């Protein structure tokens, strides 16, 4: 299904993987059971906090801290949600988060694919130097610039506005680097040439030739950017000074510090902030994980 989405370079020359004689030969039934047992313990440890989140968000605070603890979901989800919404405007925070995450995903896909296409398929004076600069920018740590960035935002009059979250991240080195790898392998030069013969300029070629062939990489970059933006906390916490205009994570943190004793409603808020993201991740999980791993090995 995804074969066409990935750069085909090398795939054909890859030697057929030998049958995994290693595992097969020595594997006893007992060994298999032990292996799966280890993995299942791992899965339980990974997923238990989610289960516990569901249990807590559907229980009253009294039930959560009772002894012996209640280990199955309760029936108070709606009540918890109502209490939570009465205290924190989580819906508008949800809206703000959606605006920021979606805008960032779209802008990053747009600007990064333009730059990646130019770097991968065209040679122009200074292109090598510019690309080297791009790689060096990976090394600059974000925490260095929290204070000066805040000062800059206040000079621009952006403090408290969502543009302070969107504009600075609208193009990034990671995405350009990633898509450039995709573009170098996935877009045949012949196609670009025939587009040119048909009279298409750079931007038209980008839109009609590059974008369709890059859609696998673009999908990954879009989801990755969306998830990162959705979970971002430090910068929104600093720059969104208006309590009426928050993102989901900041609102959740406020809810936790102000109404921390009412666990039921705090957990209901946490549930709202976690579910959409897990849904999105599960839809594209396979492709997503493969790309994360490949990206790490390349980098």
């Amino acid at each position: 299904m995804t074969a066409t989405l990935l750069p085909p370079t090398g795939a054909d020359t890859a030697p057929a993987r030998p049958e995994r004689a290693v595992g097969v030969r020595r594997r006893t039934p007992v060994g298999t059971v032990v292996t799966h047992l280890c993995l299942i313990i791992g899965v339980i440890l990974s997923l238990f906090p989610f289960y516990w989140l569901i249990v807590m968000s559907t229980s009253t605070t009294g039930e959560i801290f009772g002894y012996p603890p209640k280990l199955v979901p309760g029936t108070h989800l709606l009540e918890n949600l109502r209490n939570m919404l009465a205290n924190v405007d989580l819906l508008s925070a949800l809206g703000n988060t959606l605006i920021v995450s979606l805008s960032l995903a779209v802008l990053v896909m747009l600007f990064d694919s333009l730059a990646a296409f130019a770097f991968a398929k065209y040679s122009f004076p200074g292109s090598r130097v510019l690309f080297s600069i791009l790689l060096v920018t990976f090394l600059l740590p974000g925490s260095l610039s929290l204070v000066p960035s805040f000062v800059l935002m206040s000079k621009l009059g952006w403090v408290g506005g969502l543009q302070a979250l969107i504009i600075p991240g609208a193009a990034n080195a990671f995405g350009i680097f990633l898509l450039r790898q995709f573009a170098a392998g996935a877009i045949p030069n012949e196609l670009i040439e025939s587009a040119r013969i048909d009279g298409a300029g750079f931007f038209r070629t980008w839109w009609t030739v590059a974008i369709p062939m890059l859609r696998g990489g673009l999908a990954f970059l879009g989801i990755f950017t969306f998830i990162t933006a959705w979970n971002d906390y430090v910068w929104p916490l600093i720059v969104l000074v208006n309590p009426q205009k928050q993102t989901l994570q900041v609102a959740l943190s406020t809810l936790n510090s102000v109404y921390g004793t009412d666990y039921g409603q705090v957990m209901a808020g946490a549930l709202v902030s976690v579910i959409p993201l897990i849904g999105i991740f599960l839809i594209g999980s396979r492709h997503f994980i493969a790309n994360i791993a490949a990206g790490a090995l390349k980098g």
Partner: protein
Amino acid sequence: MAISESARPGTATRPASFAEAPDGERRRRPLRSYWPQYVAVAPFYILFLVFGLFPVVFSVVLSFTQWDGISKLKFVGLAQYAFLVQDPRFWTSVANTLIIWVISTLPMLFLALLMAFILHQNIRGKGFYRVAFFIPNVTSLVAVAVVFSSVFSDSFGLINNALTALGAANIPWLSSDWGIKVTIAVMVIWRYTGYNAIIYLAGLQSVPTDLYEAARVDGASSTQIFFRITIPLLRPVILFTLITSTIGGLSLFTEPQVLFGTGASASSAGGPGDAGLTIVLYQYVQAFFNFDFGYASAIAWALFVLSAVVAFINFRLLRDRDDAMGDRKVPMFQRRRAAARARSRAAESDAVSASRQTREEVRS
């Protein structure tokens, strides 16, 4: 790279700004004919100049000043750094950060290796396990901190309740020095173990299977294979995860910030006894509670230096082991060079075959 890839004998119908043009011809073309490419790459560089480079330069300047963001900026030379080296709270934050980094990174990377090693075997349901292990990584830190703060709550938290049920004494997770550090480390371990395991798994899949096979034939046990083959061959990948974990671990902020609801006052920022006060949390308190922008910038640069030093030590640790295994008759510098060459070759072929492998997997 792209240039050489697409280098072909030129044709009469060469595109206006196409990479295939031989150098001589390219130079003759006026610069303005490349405007679409410059426009295409411009957004990143403009944004980087304004929101990336300028703040970093500005933060150097700020670290030599006394400024609250409103009144007139006053240059004080190295006074902020002089204060920094004798500020006990700063050193507390450094110690906390390093301790939490060590007690989270070491178990995390070891567990991840183990997990990847198990997943690499020929087992059913690999896809399911990978997704299940990766889910924590896409969960927001704030939600993680909120859930874990209840699980580790001193009175009637799930863990202390379980300890009570087992007849054991309760542990003051959120009010004792080590309890706080362990709680934060557990959150980090929970969120990133699966992520690192997935990266190791991709690395493992790039190791040729005949190596394992040969070891099996020679009668090596799984444990021997893990420590003698898997770990040495994964060294470049381990270095990558170690560096990533260092950069992430030393800028730890969200977990303690949410855990102790920093916001009420600057003095209680790191929880009881400042046990959860990390460097970035301290920087945040100085900047946005005490409005001491100059001092906060000095802290930021101290963190930068610390990260660079720790990353360098990581690098040396993993590198020097190569030398230890090298041929002792060869002079030191030659051995190093040979090792470096072998390593870079290995890393290259690793990366190539890993991406190939990943692709294969996606296809299947």
